[in-house]
């Protein structure tokens, strides 16, 4: 693969994209180059000629690179780009309002406070995961909205971890729900007499863990979506800035 490093570096310099997307495009190109190289070798060309021909085929012009960028965009980015920057900013504000309201709604609902013995064993790992998502989200909000020193290559930092924490919270919530159901049913099986207290405890534990994890996942997901919209807007601004800068220089 080393034989194509120069070409890949050249293309990498021409791609103004966040690192993960750039990595993906370069990966695909490296794959194609290797395939073509092997193909030309099998046709009987020597190594140098096979390498030259493969490079000739893959070396992309500006239009092809633009097309590659568009093809490698996530479906969420493609969907969000359908809206103008202004409407996306309005959506962002609306989403922050929803996120701010969600903990308030949960606190105002007349759920009794749960004691430690009424909580599922799964509550603690789920709370730890939710805390990770919360801390990272706060840090990202600070970086994007308060400090506002945007380094384009670091814009997506922590975003996958936030999303992953949300997903983990959901998985733990469902695991806890089914676990508490099973645990309660087994207790009822072994117990002789009135099963009502066990049934109530089972329902309370299983429902509380599911409710906590669902709310935590929903908030994490909404925060992630809002931050992604913000990052997308910043990337677009950066891209337009680079393009005008290039035009001025030329």
């Amino acid at each position, binding site marked *: 693969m080393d034989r194509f490093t120069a070409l890949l*570096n050249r293309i990498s310099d021409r791609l103004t994209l966040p*690192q993960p997307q750039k990595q993906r495009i370069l*990966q695909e190109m490296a794959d194609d180059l*290797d395939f073509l190289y092997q193909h030309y070798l099998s046709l009987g060309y020597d190594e140098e000629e096979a390498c030259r021909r493969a490079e000739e085929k893959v070396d992309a012009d500006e239009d092809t690179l633009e097309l590659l960028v568009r093809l490698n965009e996530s479906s969420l980015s493609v969907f969000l780009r359908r809206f103008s920057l202004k409407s996306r900013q309005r959506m962002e504000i609306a989403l922050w309002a929803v996120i701010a309201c969600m903990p308030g709604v949960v606190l105002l609902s007349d759920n009794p406070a749960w004691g430690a013995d009424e909580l599922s064993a799964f509550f603690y790992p789920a709370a730890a995961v939710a805390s990770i998502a919360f801390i990272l989200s706060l840090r990202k909000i600070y970086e994007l909205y308060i400090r506002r020193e945007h380094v384009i290559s670091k814009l997506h930092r922590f975003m996958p971890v936030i999303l992953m924490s949300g997903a983990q919270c959901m*998985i*733990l919530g469902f695991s806890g729900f*089914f676990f508490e159901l099973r645990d309660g049913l*087994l207790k009822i*099986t072994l117990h002789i007499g009135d099963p009502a207290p066990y049934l109530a405890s089972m329902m309370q534990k299983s429902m509380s863990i599911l409710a906590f994890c669902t709310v935590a996942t929903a908030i994490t997901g909404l925060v992630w979506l809002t931050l992604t919209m913000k990052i997308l807007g910043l990337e677009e601004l950066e891209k337009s800035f680079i393009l005008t800068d290039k035009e001025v220089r030329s």
Partner: protein
Amino acid sequence: MTILTEMGLFAYPILAIALAILIIAGKKFRDLYILRRVVRRQSEEHTLNAILVLAVIMVAVGFTATIMGFSSVMRVILTAREIDPAVVTRSIASSLLPVIVSLLALSVSSIVWFVLRLRFMSLIEKTDSRDR
């Protein structure tokens, strides 16, 4: 062994998928952490993603097992003239086991996948900057 017996026939596909995940993860761990070998290839990334896909399939199998377990319990309740409630609760509890096991496996597998993927990306970045 008790868990396997309790899970019934569905324990075997779940075990087989878990084993496949373990083998892929072990191989990737050796490549990325011990040998520190990374190839910039789409297929390498696909192999990594297979961990997550297999874990999701495992959850699907787990849910199927649970639903089929519930269905069997309901059929027995409908056909039996008299049935001990303890038998019913015990059977429903057993039916829940496959989904619990598969969800916990998904949780662990997704963390493993995430960590390996981060390592894969960071090694590729390192290789890139070294080549420059």
